[in-house]
């Protein structure tokens, strides 16, 4: 405990280490928060998602913070749902008909037009479908008739697909025509900001029959991370990428270093044919093509994260580090205190664990910390080349899908850059801590 405090005291003298540790702490808190707020099952189902989950989000919308850097804000995405208490809804039952009046006022603050608008109707009835009549009141008080039709239990009305409405709006597509000042000749290509009101009058023909509507305006920005080509919220992948990357990085690094160290220690201590076999395996393993084997496993066996983790660890155990550790162990093995330990009858296990291993820890810890981002990047790289876990949303997958869907060609930089920047920060934070630790544990490097 004391030595831990001393370690923190010493490492706090390196500003880069402090920044690195704060970043790591932030990432860890972020990961814990993610796993608690979006449980694994939910994340998977959200990311597998279809129209039923993501019907209210726009396609490839930019993140909200884009507006901080713009003079004129682009429209945000929002929705109003009468079932959730938005707007006002009144019902009046008389003479066997139920008259429904719905008013949904909303502020429109952008001079740009929305991507699209839709109204989702849900109605309850026994035999006869309710009938609705839709109007839009503009800030100038003008009344635009949208349309009237009967609605089934589930009915979707898309403004953009209404040809009649387009004709009524002098040939302008509805999501534009509604918001522009049609009387003015000059300001035609800008939306008029102000308070709009969607009015829906409905007639139902049964006592308990009613209509609920959800009105969605698809803007150009959504959430703090934007959406992808399948309307999915990118923030889910950004958030879930953190625990996945950290877990993969940490487990792979820990598994590799600890196993390598133990194998090197055992080989060196027993020497002879044990050492011989370990060294030959290492040499063979060193010339095996790492990536090709992973691609093979991914193609023919499984691409799940745990399989990849096991493959990465088992391919790295007999890595170059074994030679480094062995060189150090050989030196320690010959030191008088190891012979003294042998003399007092310490067992082989005791000598390996109490005498050899502790001496190697100063060498091992910085390497371990630096190995974590290496494995984080490896996981991302594998995903980018198509060997990622098929179900998990990760940073690498965002980059892969972004590039695959032309994000960079269409200027949707947020899609690729956000995960890239988070990857960068992760790598940087561990590297900053690792290099500082190296300077503390191996002071000989300080002068170099």
């Amino acid at each position: 405990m004391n030595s831990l405090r001393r370690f923190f005291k010493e490492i706090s003298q390196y500003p880069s280490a402090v920044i690195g540790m704060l970043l790591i702490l932030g990432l860890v808190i972020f990961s814990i928060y993610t796993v608690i707020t979006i449980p694994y099952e939910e994340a998977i189902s959200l990311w597998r998602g279809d129209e039923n989950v993501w019907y209210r989000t726009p396609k490839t919308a930019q993140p909200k913070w884009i507006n901080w850097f713009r003079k004129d804000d682009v429209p945000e995405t929002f929705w109003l749902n009468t079932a959730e208490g938005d707007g006002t809804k009144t019902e009046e039952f008389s003479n066997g008909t139920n008259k429904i009046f719905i008013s949904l006022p909303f502020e429109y603050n952008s001079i740009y037009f929305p991507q699209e608008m839709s109204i989702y109707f849900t109605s309850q009835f026994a035999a006869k479908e309710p009938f609705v009549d839709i109007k839009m009141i503009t800030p100038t008080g003008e009344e635009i008739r949208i349309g009237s039709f009967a609605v089934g239990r589930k009915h979707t009305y898309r403004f953009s697909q209404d040809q009649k409405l387009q004709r009524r709006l002098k040939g302008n597509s509805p999501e534009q025509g509604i918001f522009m000042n049609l009387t003015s000749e000059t300001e035609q290509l800008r939306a008029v900001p102000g308070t709009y009101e969607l009015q829906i009058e409905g007639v139902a023909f049964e006592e308990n029959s009613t209509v609920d509507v959800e009105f969605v305006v698809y803007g150009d920005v959504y959430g703090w991370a934007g959406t992808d080509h399948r309307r999915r919220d990118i923030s889910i992948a950004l958030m879930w990428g953190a625990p996945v990357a950290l877990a993969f990085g940490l487990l792979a690094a820990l598994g590799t270093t600890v196993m390598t160290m133990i194998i090197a220690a055992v080989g060196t201590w027993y020497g002879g044919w044990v050492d011989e076999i370990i060294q030959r395996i290492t040499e063979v393993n060193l010339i095996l093509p790492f990536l090709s084997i992973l691609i093979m496993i991914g193609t023919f066996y499984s691409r799940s994260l745990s399989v990849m983790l096991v493959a990465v660890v088992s391919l790295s155990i007999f890595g170059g580090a074994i030679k480094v550790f062995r060189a150090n162990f050989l030196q320690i093995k010959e030191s008088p205190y190891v012979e003294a330990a042998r003399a007092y009858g310490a067992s082989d296990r005791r000598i390996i664990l109490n005498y050899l291993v502790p001496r190697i820890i100063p060498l091992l810890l910085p390497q371990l910390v630096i190995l974590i981002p290496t494995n984080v990047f490896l996981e991302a790289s594998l995903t980018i080349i198509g060997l990622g876990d098929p179900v998990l949303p990760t940073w690498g997958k965002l980059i892969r899908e972004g590039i695959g869907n032309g994000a960079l060609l269409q200027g949707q930089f947020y899609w690729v850059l956000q995960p890239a920047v988070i990857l960068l920060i992760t790598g940087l934070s561990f590297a900053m801590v690792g290099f500082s630790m190296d300077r503390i544990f191996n002071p000989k490097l300080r002068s170099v």
Partner: protein
Amino acid sequence: MPNDTLLRIEDLILHFKTRQGTVQAVDGIFFELGYEEAVVVLGESGCGKSSLAKAILRLLPRNVERYQGRIYLENTEIMALDDEEFRKNVRWVGISLVPQAAMNALNPVLKVGEQVAEPAIVHLGVSKAEAVGLVKKMFEHVGVPEDFINRYPFELSGGMRQRVAIAMSLVTSPNLIVLDEPTSALDVLTQASIFNVLKRLKKELGIGFILITHDIATSSELADTIAVMYAGQIVEVSDAYHFFEKPLHPYSQKLMASVPRLHSSTEPEFITGRPPSLIALPKGCRFKERCPFRFEKCDEDPPVFQKEGRQVRCWLYA
């Protein structure tokens, strides 16, 4: 019981295989040691003293060519034990070792308290708390302050480290301790105080010592029996009193003459020539090349002769 033999070594042989040839580091060692006795093994550098210590404790390197002989520890033939039995029943339980260069014999990443407790935990199976109690007792015996338990070896002076190493050899209360040049790197004052510690231990705890050294003067402090080693062989075994009075073997005589004396006009002598290489030993007596009394018989291997209750490997006493 005090007159019983604690340790008897007969014809102990340890040869190493090297690229140049066979190194006959230990070649026919014999001596006896009673309870509460100290044997000093005297010899110059490279005569196989440390190999003898290793041979007794079976701490063998990889390149052993020949390892045989008989070692009786309290009437048990310990050479007949297998490695695991040897580790459990002999090392530290029967015989402890204070290794050469005790300064480096401590694990730098363990606190000395833990280090000294290790043998007790390994062999006696005591708990950590009990072991700490034992360590404190041992520290008291060897004169190390109790609070040194929590220090690391690098925080200790050479003399203190040597004491800690001795405390470590005591912790399982063995009957016999092998000390391999315990004072060679220390100044004379520290040497003296270490020897006082050893003397007290011998008296208070009744421990037998095998002290391996090249230092004749300090060894006389502790010795009951002197065994002189030359080129891997014991050339003379004698009780200390008679040995210092009149050494028998020519090598012993020369060795004694090389010690500088206070208030005396006699110049310290040195032995001409060099000790033979342990790889290419001469036929016959191994000391003949440097011996002033050489005669024809010396070309034959000398057996061990008994003379006045002392043993000497020299044709002069045939």
